[in-house]
């Protein structure tokens, strides 16, 4: 285990049992989450990014199977070999998760104050630490730019969507986690609120130095918040690098295609174009490289042999047979 990494994912395989058969949602994934950094995970809907996020905390769906040999090493401990009690201690205290549309995860029948106290009591043992953490509540609410006096006595329905979302973020920070895992944390919020919340995340990262793992389908959000990025496609990680490398010097044709297919309020419209074809059906995956049916660079080799994720420059990993072609042709964005 590398000291710099807070989480190391190794050979993670997550299958879902569905009516039509076995669907492999996460397929042999290796990923390092570096301590103190903001790592972003980009992928389109159905690529397995939420499954990966839930696996980080060993939260599985009833029809989901984590296969033998999968590892999520959290500071050296494999999360799949922990007992329920060990997991309880780890969750929220060491790693906190903010779900997609988290504003709906608040209990509608009790006040914000009550749910915050519940959270502390559920994950901490009795003692000094408990009252100390309770004392931090107002400070955390101020950090997410809320008025503690007003919010604490409110029920969720008395708050706007943006305020609920900020409350959930403050709750995630209650027990001083080392890593904050954010699964599409700004969906269902309007643009101005979204931008405000991204600023708050940047603020929290700067002030508390907390590690963040930020999952989104929107490249623009990742551009704003992330320092490192991983690109996921059909259950696999295709490219990992610093955010600048991914946006300005990507190697994988999918990454390049994804960046070019993003409409934006800036930039040359004639450079924007869609990726041809459709994402694969996970029940009938293509052979070889999963992206080959849509790839402009695909060769016979790509149809047959699956490329491995290899480090081609320091900290920049790519799973593509043809990455040197991509480099020479100056296709990179």
């Amino acid at each position, binding site marked *: 285990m590398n000291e710099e990494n807070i989480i190391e994912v190794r050979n993670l395989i997550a299958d879902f049992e569905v009516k039509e058969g076995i669907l492999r949602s996460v397929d042999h994934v290796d990923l390092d989450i570096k301590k103190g950094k903001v790592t972003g995970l980009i992928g*389109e809907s159905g690529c397995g990014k939420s499954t990966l996020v839930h696996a980080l905390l060993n939260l599985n769906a009833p029809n989901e199977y984590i296969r033998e040999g999968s590892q999520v090493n959290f500071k050296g401990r494999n999360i799949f070999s922990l007992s329920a009690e060990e997991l309880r201690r780890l969750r929220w205290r060491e790693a906190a998760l903010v779900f997609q549309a988290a504003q709906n995860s608040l209990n509608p029948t009790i006040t914000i104050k009550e749910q915050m106290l519940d959270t502390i009591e559920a994950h901490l043992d009795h003692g000094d630490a408990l009252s100390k953490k309770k004392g931090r509540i107002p400070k955390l609410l101020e950090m997410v730019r809320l008025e503690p006096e007003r919010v604490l006595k409110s029920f969720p329905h008395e708050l706007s969507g*943006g305020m609920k979302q900020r409350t959930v973020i403050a709750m995630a920070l209650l027990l001083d986690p080392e890593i904050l895992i954010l699964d599409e944390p700004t969906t269902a919020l309007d643009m101005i609120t979204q931008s405000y919340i991204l600023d708050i995340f940047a603020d929290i990262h700067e002030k508390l130095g907390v590690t963040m793992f930020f999952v989104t389908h*929107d490249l623009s959000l990742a*551009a704003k918040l*992330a320092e490192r990025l991983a690109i996921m496609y059909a259950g696999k990680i295709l490219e990992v690098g610093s955010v600048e490398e991914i946006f300005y010097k990507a190697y994988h044709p999918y990454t390049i295609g994804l960046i070019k297919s993003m409409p*934006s*309020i800036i930039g040359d419209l004639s450079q924007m174009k869609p*990726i041809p074809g*459709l*994402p694969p059906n996970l029940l009938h995956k293509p052979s070889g490289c999963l992206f080959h049916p849509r790839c402009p660079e695909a060769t016979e080799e790509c149809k047959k042999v699956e490329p491995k994720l290899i480090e081609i420059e320091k900290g920049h990993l790519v799973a593509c047979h043809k990455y040197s072609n991509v480099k020479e042709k100056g296709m990179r964005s």
Partner: protein
Amino acid sequence: MSQILKCKGERDEIMNRPLAELKNVSMYFKKDKLKIGAVVDVSLKIFPGEILSLVGESGCGKTTVGKIFLGRLKPTSGDVLFEGKDIWKMSKQEYKKFRPLIQVVHQDSYASLNPVRTVYQTLAAPLQFYKITRTREETEKKVKELLQMVEVIPPGYFMNKYPFHLSGGLRQRVSLARATILKPKLIIADEPVSGVDASLRISVLDVMRRLNKELNIAFLYITHDLATARYFSRKGRMAVMYIGQIVETGGINELIEEPKHPYLQALLSAIPVPDPKLAKKKRLLPLKSLDLPSAGHPPSGCRFHPRCPYAKEICEREAPELKDLGNEHRVACHLVEEIPKWALELKS
């Protein structure tokens, strides 16, 4: 010379005659004794073959405007015109002729296609009902042509699929194909790509652009996403809505590059851009309040004043009117001459 001028004048007159128009339209809904003004005194024109983007955040009334254009909702006050005729004063015959000329494509492509009909059955129904095609062979040929046009390829394969077999992007193309069958002059597209995968979004917009260019169908593109509006409409016009009112209209590029209304400036400052250096530099315009007031209790005067960083006493007291700054750029702001210039940073 005089003849050329005359011709030009005539052409201008035809070009300047709106296809569809709202004149001082307001729409109030009643909810628990509260009168909610979803649309308040809105005037909008859509010209033949143009793309008008109607942009605003959720709850601003943009969908209601679409339904009013369509004749789906009767406004509380104001006139709704199509080719110069008030659609609520049309005779039965006139209405029957008008109705097919505006079509709609909804956000939820799954809910808008019948789940127990195949793509063929969905597209064949209107062809047969309106007797556009008479025989099975003719219908099949036409359905294939329609699918080809919206790039659902190969048509023969997809024709026999049910909606649940198709991805969001493909379903939306089928909806678009269906919308063109009766040769409409206007399609109301209400957030048509927000349910489509990121990498495929612009391919659906490309199909819409093609329908606009090749079939000369005008579009009212309703969205919260300025980036897709810019991609789809290119040189088209845009109207920005805020709590039931239009606050700024004009050419979309001009509006994005030189927004005048503080609300549009705030919106543009909030939109993330896919460029890490620019994105990290971008700062949200410092608003006085983050929360959107409710349409049930709209603020007095300018509806943006409680959030506006520049608001003065007059803004609280008087509602500003849309003023023409020239070049068809109109803004509803008392302080448009005074507030600091704001522009998007375009290069990192």
